[in-house]
């Protein structure tokens, strides 16, 4: 695995236009596979529409201490995009005024943002029901300045959702880089030590599994049982829930699919596993995603493809929820990733 982002390498797959073009050609242009829009039309409605807004997902920036082989963000140490304090303040205003039940901070590694602690403290004061930070775990052990983050999370009643692609070293390190597994285990033990994942503490620690290759995730509950058994027996680690997330054909995972000649078969698997019930509950229907520069998206995947919301209001500066609720959700073939089998969202299966 390289340690540079596709963007730094000037790989064409770092371009949203190139990716969208690729996703609309090949097996979808020949008619071998139906376009995602066809699936929506089959439901009798012309577009996918939002439900009430519940989740605000803020992407603080694309900088990360890791360069994961499957990353849809193309995050890494060389990504400098970062939300300014002015935009962060606008986010706080929005949280205060909009009926947001869940605030979900992501990145990159959100903890690397210089205003991370300030923003969490300010947002915490607004009394959010479910305040999520998506942590890659290794950042908690990357530098001494991050060592007290478990305590900081606890003090702000943060719901920690952490990626751990597998409960064994080899698969985890292959996807996320050498040494990631050991550091992740240390971080989980630190989180457990302050009460995260421990019954009756109320401190929620969830893990995210995503397949380390061109296949769909298995049953979420069965995987959760395997994770719980393995992590508890080998490392004394406890956690609450496991979310099984399907890899979407975007950015680095798309690059892997193409390079390994798995793209056509993977897309066929996604299309064959299309589940109309999942379409009802996909996360883009109750979520808004905010980019580091304040632009608005239906989800974090659309953000990476730069599919800005289909609405005159496209930016935090002139946010108008009533207008945004009337938008239709922008889609492309990558959306098949969220509707395959039991569905997939940032909080795992949806059916």
């Amino acid at each position, binding site marked *: 695995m390289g340690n540079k982002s596709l963007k730094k390498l000037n790989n064409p797959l770092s371009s949203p236009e190139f990716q969208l073009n690729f996703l609309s050609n090949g097996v979808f242009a020949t008619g071998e596979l139906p376009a995602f829009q066809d699936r929506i039309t089959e439901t009798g409605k012309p577009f996918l529409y939002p439900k009430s807004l519940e989740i605000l997902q803020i992407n603080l920036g694309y900088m990360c201490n890791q360069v994961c082989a499957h990353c849809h963000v193309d995050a890494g140490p060389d990504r400098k995009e970062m939300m300014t304090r002015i935009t962060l303040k606008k986010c706080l205003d929005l949280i205060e005024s909009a009926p947001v039940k869940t605030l979900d901070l992501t990145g990159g590694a959100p903890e690397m943002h210089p205003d991370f602690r300030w923003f969490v403290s300010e947002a915490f004061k607004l009394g959010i029901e479910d305040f999520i930070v998506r942590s890659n775990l290794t950042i908690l052990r990357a530098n001494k300045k991050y060592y007290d983050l478990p305590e900081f999370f606890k003090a702000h009643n943060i719901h920690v959702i952490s990626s751990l692609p*597998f409960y064994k070293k080899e698969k985890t390190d292959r996807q996320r880089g050498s040494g990631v597994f050991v550091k992740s285990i240390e971080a989980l033990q630190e989180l457990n030590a302050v009460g995260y994942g421990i019954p009756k503490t109320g401190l929620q620690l969830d893990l995210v599994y995503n397949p380390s290759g061109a296949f*769909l995730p*298995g049953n979420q509950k069965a995987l959760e049982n395997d994770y719980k058994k393995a992590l508890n027996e080998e490392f004394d680690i406890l956690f609450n829930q496991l979310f099984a997330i399907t890899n979407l054909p975007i950015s680095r995972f798309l690059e892997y699919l193409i390079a390994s000649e798995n793209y056509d078969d993977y897309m066929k698997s996604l299309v064959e596993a299309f589940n109309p019930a999942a379409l009802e509950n996909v996360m883009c229907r109750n979520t808004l995603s905010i980019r580091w520069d304040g632009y608005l998206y239906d989800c974090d995947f659309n953000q990476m493809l730069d599919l800005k919301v289909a609405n005159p209001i496209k930016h935090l500066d002139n946010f108008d929820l009533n207008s945004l609720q009337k938008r239709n959700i922008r889609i492309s073939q990558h959306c098949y990733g969220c509707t395959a089998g039991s569905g997939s969202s940032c909080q795992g299966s949806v059916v």
Partner: protein
Amino acid sequence: MNNPYYQSQDLKKFKKISDWSPKLGKNFFNYYNSVFDEGVLSAREKSLIALAVSHTVQCPYCIDAYTQDGLQRGIDKEEMMEAVHVAAAIRGGASLVHGVQMMEVYNKRSM
């Protein structure tokens, strides 16, 4: 080879065997699915048994299907390879144990 006897896409047509014998086909697939339900043996254990048997019967469709099934279940490559060795050991043993018969015939017919 341009036109191999085995085509990977044929696996997806497996259900079509019911077209020419709907009742037997339906019974077979009901039975098949029930076999792989969680039971006294876990679905994970059954997946590994299926993988081993796939190698014994040397069915490329089955090997493809149960390797992917194992990946989805989080079964390691080491576990899969050990299962294949179980198949190989039984298969090899089945040949070798007939060596006893060979030895008996040899001994009986030899002075």
